[in-house]
């Protein structure tokens, strides 16, 4: 996604801050095809569609884990043949939305694919940062946690760098390694295993969810919170120009201490949720208007 498109989406989403007309997509039908459980992202897309006057249909999937490839693609093709205006896809299969896009007429919106990408989350994160801090260019953002398993991290690395920000990835060695260095479009992304040395250098701290459900490849250190968590002590020591984010849902007491989550004054976590609707509205509008 070129920087120009990201900027357009940010501008459209920002414009929705002052309200929706309500008939932007009236008469349109959006299919939410979630092969992986998700409450937040699916609801966010549903609310967005509804705000724009579109209707949504939701398909969950228990789906067999064997031969996922075929059945997921088939389902999308069937919805496409029924003439829906857009298909929002969440899949555990890396690259599945792109595969669907090759075969479907309807625009495909990637709502998260495996450990690959989660573009709508990254875009809403960009929107949140730009709204509060006034810019993205030149900012320094630390992404902290289970980077290896995180599609949110991969999309944010891309989006933040494309918009001129610098990204530092922080996590234990099992969760981020040197293969991430230079991953973004500008090749500036760096890797660190020392959160406390990174904190003073950054404007935004984006704490990631520890993805227990993504399995064994990166064992979680038993003292994760001590080394990589946003503890009360760390939060208290932050400067007044430093901001805290988390894509949710938070494992309280692991990535972020409960009292920090409740009362940290510069938390953007709630804003991320509300901005999710604005950004997903912008995404749906663009996808359908261009199809």
């Amino acid at each position, binding site marked *: 996604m070129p920087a120009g498109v990201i900027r357009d989406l940010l501008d459209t989403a920002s414009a929705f801050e002052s309200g929706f007309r309500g008939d932007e997509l009236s008469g349109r039908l959006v299919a939410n095809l979630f092969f992986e459980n998700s409450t937040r992202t699916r609801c966010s897309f549903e609310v967005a569609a509804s705000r724009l006057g579109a209707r949504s249909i939701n398909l969950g999937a228990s789906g067999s884990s*064997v*031969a*996922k*490839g*075929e059945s997921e693609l088939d389902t999308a093709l069937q919805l496409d043949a029924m003439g829906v205006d857009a298909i929002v896809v969440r899949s555990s*299969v*890396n*690259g*599945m939305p*792109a*595969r669907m896009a090759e075969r479907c007429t309807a625009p495909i919106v990637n709502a998260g694919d*495996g*450990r*690959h*990408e989660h573009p709508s989350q990254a875009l809403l994160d960009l929107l949140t940062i730009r709204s509060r801090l006034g810019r993205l260019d030149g900012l320094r953002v630390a992404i902290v946690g289970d980077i*290896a398993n995180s*599609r949110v991290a*991969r999309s944010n690395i891309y989006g933040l760098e494309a918009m001129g920000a610098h990204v530092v990835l922080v996590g234990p060695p099992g969760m981020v390694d040197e*293969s*991430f260095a*230079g*991953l973004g479009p500008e090749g500036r992304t760096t890797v660190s295993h020392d959160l406390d040395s990174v904190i003073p250098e950054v404007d935004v701290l984006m704490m990631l969810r520890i993805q227990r459900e993504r*399995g*064994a*490849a990166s064992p979680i250190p038993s003292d994760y919170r001590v080394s990589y968590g946003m503890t009360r002590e760390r939060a208290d020591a932050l400067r007044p120009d430093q901001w805290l984010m988390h894509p949710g849902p938070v494992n309280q007491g692991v990535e972020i201490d409960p009292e920090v989550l409740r009362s940290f004054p510069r938390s953007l976590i709630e804003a991320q949720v509300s901005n999710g609707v604005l950004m997903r509205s912008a995404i749906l509008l663009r996808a359908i208007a261009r199809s």
Partner: protein
Amino acid sequence: MEHAPTEQDLLVRGGRVIDPDSGRDELADVLIRDGLVEAIAPGLDGSPGVEVIEAEGCLVTPGLIDPHVHLREPGGESKETIATGSRAAVAGGFTTVCCMPNTVPAIDSVRTLEFVHQRAEHGALCRVYAVAAATIGRRGEEIAPIDSLVRAGAVGISDDGDVVADPLMMQQVLATCARHDTVFMQHAQEPSLTVGASMNAGATCTRLGLRGWPRIAEELVVERDLRILAETGGRYHVQHVSSGGTVELIRRARARGLQASGEASPHHLLLDDRACEGYDTMAKMNPPLREEADIHALRQGVADGTIGILATDHAPHTLQEKSLDFESAPFGIVGLECALGLYAKALVEPGLIDWPRLVALMTIEPARLVGLDASGIGTLAPGGPADLTIIDPGHCWTVRTGEFAGKGRNCPFEGWTLTGRAITTIVDGVPVHAVEAPSGVG
């Protein structure tokens, strides 16, 4: 083999006869009678009734040997059979292949081995020998009846597709193979380092969000095995070497006098892990495609003799299986039909080796590896079996998987233009394959 030796005598005329075993490299004719090579000399006479095959401008070599193929029979007949795999083999110029034991059931008993031999006898266009399993069911828990398997004709021992992971088991297997001077072939993959892995660990893998398969998963096993080999003795062979580090381990082991060898596959000599971009399952192999430095190290290994064997790891799968998503799709690609041209591209065209050396790497070297040289396979000598391949080194052709002779179409080289091709394949004195309109001949 399917065909009986025919009455038809053959004269292969005017080619450059290359037999690395004897050192012969000259323009000569080859007279074939009753399935055997009768004479090799310039200006041989084709007496009446002898069919003449013109080989001017071509190389006439011992039949090519691939010591590492998967023919899927028994149990995987939708992917390939011994008969169809042998058609792929002769189409690529191979007259002998060694099939791996990861069938269903595995080739871990004399009974299954004899079944494979019987299928080969009655359905194959080329010689098919079997490599038998090292452990029962290839599960790594209980040693296979190696003595009996070797006596029944197994030409090597391997759990290919899986590693022999346990050191004690490895020690027993190597020691048992050593008693017979039978080669043990290791599929070097440390299981704990490759859980859920589907491609080389590195930047491409990280961006694609796949689980990485590090080089050390291969090197660790090889390094350990070489320690064991130093105690047990015997012959140890690393299958489908993918990492530059492994090349160096083999190089050092050979310098220390250990009987260690390694093989290179066409894909590891030509492709790197960027081929997996877009989740292209045709680039999904075990071991995975690595990086440019590994390609370079492998090629250097071939050039300096460290890697003395070329093997395709021909691994047919149905297109349906390969059209699954990247992580679910099976590992492997087919290679028999286009291997020769690919080796030429990787090794001869850059000047790393010459054609005679390439012929050696595909004939006498693999024959020695699996002990078939004693039967005259891999050489061209009067009185020996008339297995010949006629290669046109200038034949320029385009890989079309739709025209492959075997069942497998899973090949990342579709559309590649290659120079060098086997235009006639002769097994036991019978031409079993010929390219219809060879260019550059005559």
